[in-house]
């Protein structure tokens, strides 16, 4: 389980207490938490990049889950960083890492400086 996944109310139980992080004030799964879910739940969680199978039964339920895993995890990372659909290509290209608290781009390793045309107004 990823650590940015909230805990569904039905799973916020004493059974899972030691796998839940409450330091933010809300229950989040600890990284690597192992939970028991039904077959469809496993397929959705793994397919969404939230989890990886933890045993053979889960592996079988999620047959082929490793295919395109890099794409799934990239999409999941964009979800975690709330990347705007229009900025997804820029995130994939490494131009931005996300947004700061004011909604401005956080430059990535392949950051492209805005064109002069874009900064002209600022210079005036």
């Amino acid at each position, binding site marked *: *389980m990823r650590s940015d*996944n*909230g*805990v*569904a*109310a*039905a*799973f916020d139980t004493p059974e899972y207490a030691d796998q839940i992080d409450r330091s933010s*004030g*809300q229950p989040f*799964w600890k990284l690597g938490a192992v*939970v028991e*879910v*039904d077959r*469809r*739940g*496993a*397929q*959705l*969680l*793994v*397919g*969404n*990049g*939230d*989890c990886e199978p933890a045993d053979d039964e889960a592996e079988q339920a999620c047959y082929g889950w490793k295919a395109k895993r890099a794409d799934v995890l990239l*999409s999941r990372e*964009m*979800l*975690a960083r*709330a990347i*705007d*659909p229009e900025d997804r290509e820029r995130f994939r290209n490494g131009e931005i890492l996300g*947004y700061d*608290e004011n*909604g401005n781009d956080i430059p990535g390793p392949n950051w492209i400086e805005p064109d002069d045309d874009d900064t002209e107004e600022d210079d005036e």
Partner: protein
Amino acid sequence: MAKLRCKGTIIKQTISASLTAVAQITDFNHDGAESETFDATTLDTSGAGKEYSQTGYSEGGNFGFTIFYDDTLAGHQAITDLVTTPAACVWNITTTAATAAAMAFTSAGIGFGFTGAMNDGLKADVSLKITGLLAYQT
């Protein structure tokens, strides 16, 4: 006091054991929440104005959002699962306020439809019937 930008707002859905962000949302809305009233006017009400009072109940309203729909995406399949297998679902909304805590609500029913247009991507509209009330910040 602050004017909150919407960019960066996160709407999470319950998928099995987890609350996880819904992908590719372009806009969202919440409407229809209201405190219920009844007509309390009586024959001896003074003046012309009708009178109303509170029943003590409130309508939770609806929550809706639009997504660029990807039917292969597990998170979007989890949404349509609620159509094919009706169930209550807990959702969270986290605004971009610096101290924002998630506002939670439970959907009892769901409406889903998608549209395609020559000059746009495939989009789906999701409407959720809230049971109880959305947990507003206080």
